[in-house]
């Protein structure tokens, strides 16, 4: 029972962070209708920014969110404007060219990181990395003892805060509404006077900024190496499918489900099998719930 609850907590905390990665991808997918396979690599860039900020200037990784996100925002804008937009106009046999293009971008990013930063595994030795809160500290004779790792919890809380901020941006502000309109129906949005081209660029920047922030949140609890991106691209994609394509609400649920499922597999089946659990849930989602969580939410009328 104790280990079950502990696993559940760990999964929930992991899931919150996963959700942030997934939202970035689902935003880009919703508006651009393309899959950004360089997503994990963008996260890797964000993590390296946080790492160097900590190593060189001693800036706490959590503060680096405010540094890494703007940088990633402009990197995303650059990628969208100068690399992806030209390809959208090119006529070719395979429409998947844009996806393959993002693979190329990801390769370049990962390889440049290897050249400049070597392929060593790195971690930021923050002072609170191993501290934790214990249930028994607050409740004298608790029947079960649970612990809550400090960096995990702080990362989770910040991830939730960012998600809420994003929700306000998307549902209350004009630009947010324009982005959602573009995602829902490009032609109608164009007719209603939405600057679709600008929205695309902004969305790609926003998605990159989100994943950059996620990178900063991951760095106190995870290690860092140049080729880590692919793994996180896959995670983001699984969340996107699980949540329903282009649905931000779905991505949050998808991230939580994936996080819990993954830590359950790691505890009860074996550490090495956690990635397989990830794909099993992905396949199950494809077969039994092709619309993702978004279709369930719609049925219950709580989705947008």
């Amino acid at each position, binding site marked *: 029972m104790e280990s079950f609850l502990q696993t559940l907590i760990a999964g929930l905390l992991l899931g919150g962070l996963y959700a942030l990665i997934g939202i970035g991808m689902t935003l880009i997918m919703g508006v651009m209708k*393309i*899959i950004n*396979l360089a997503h994990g690599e963008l996260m890797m860039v964000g993590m390296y920014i946080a790492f160097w900020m900590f190593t060189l200037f001693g800036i706490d990784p959590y503060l680096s969110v405010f540094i890494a996100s703007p940088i990633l925002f402009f990197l995303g804008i650059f990628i969208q404007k100068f*690399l992806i937009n*030209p*390809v959208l106009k*090119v*006529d*070719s*046999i*395979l*429409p*998947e*060219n844009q*996806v*393959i*293009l993002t*693979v*190329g*971008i*990801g*390769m*370049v990013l*990962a*390889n*440049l990181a*290897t*050249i400049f930063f070597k392929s060593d595994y790195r971690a930021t030795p923050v002072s609170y990395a191993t501290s934790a809160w214990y249930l028994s500290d607050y409740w004298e004779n608790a029947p079960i003892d649970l612990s809550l790792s400090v960096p995990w919890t702080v990362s989770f809380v910040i991830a939730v805060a960012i998600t809420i901020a994003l929700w306000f941006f998307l549902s209350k502000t004009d630009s947010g509404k324009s982005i959602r309109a573009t995602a829902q129906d490009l032609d109608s949005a164009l007719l209603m006077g939405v600057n679709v081209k600008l929205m695309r660029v902004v969305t790609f920047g926003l998605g990159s900024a989100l994943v950059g922030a996620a990178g900063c949140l991951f760095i106190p609890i995870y290690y860092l190496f140049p080729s880590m991106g*692919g793994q996180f691209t*896959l995670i983001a*994609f*699984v969340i996107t*499918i699980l949540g329903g*394509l282009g649905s931000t609400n779905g991505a949050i649920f998808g991230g939580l489900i994936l996080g819990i499922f993954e830590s359950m597999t790691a505890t009860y089946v*074996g550490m*090495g*099998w956690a*990635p*397989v659990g990830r*794909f099993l849930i*992905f*396949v199950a989602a*494809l*077969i039994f719930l*092709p619309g993702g969580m978004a279709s369930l939410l719609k049925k219950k009328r709580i989705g947008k």
Partner: protein
Amino acid sequence: MKKYLPLIVLAFLAVLPLVGLSSYMLHMVILVIMWSAVGMAWNLLAGYCGQVSFGHAAYFGVGAYTSGILYYQLKLSPWWGIPISIVVVTGFSFLLGLIVLRLRGPFFALATLAMGEMMRVSAENLNWLTGGNIGILIQERTWIDKTYYYYIILAIATATFLVVKYLMQSKIGYYFVAIREDQDAAESLGIDTTWYKTIALCISGALTGIAGAFYTNYMGYIDPHVVFALHDISIVTIMIVMVGGVATLLGPFVGAIIMVFLAELVRSIPGLGVAHQTFFGILLILIIIFLPNGIVGDFQKIKRLFKVGGAYK
């Protein structure tokens, strides 16, 4: 002339070892031919049928492991892997197709990518079957001389070429192209799109699996990170076809020549060697922006570029 080009290329390749290439050069040429076989198989599914797969390492790896497991567990000659992998990989592709062919376009691409990764993790963890991360070492090499391997892979590649060529001239080939151009229209014309996509996937998978089984025999060592590699197998396969020419018969061969030698060239330059993936990435970006149909596919475009006197005559 154009009609006989594949024959000329084949004749040239057949006499190539007689010139007395060094063992290293022969190794390069073997890799070129192996990659063009894999590229042609990928091209059948992606270029002609429009289902862009990012997980051909799954088929390559299953083929390679079929051969490896036959040797490792059953103590059979790994050469049995080549015929047996056809059956195994076809069955595997069929099962995979049941899941991934429900998806379209980019989603299919990513589902196959996930499948490739899933196979790698499984191979790492199924220690009792695959030996896990230690991999499988083929302890007895059949031949020391590479010439035999060369002719075997040449035969495999030729067979792959013929299968793709005759398939694309048949009715099924036209169905494939119809599915690529517009799946809904194809469906409305009475083509059972799911069935034909499954056929394309099975044939493409089996052809890739044979190349994988050859790889085990030739290299003598496999482990999950080598044969199920995302970048070094799946993405390289895509790049070979993208560079050479999507939906062309000779494109994968041209692409394989460029990619294998370019990789070797870049790696041999001191100081730049680590950057070979950056070169690949930039090449891929440039090709997609400027020659979206590859060198063979956009050959007319290149020709026009170098035309002397009046580009628009």
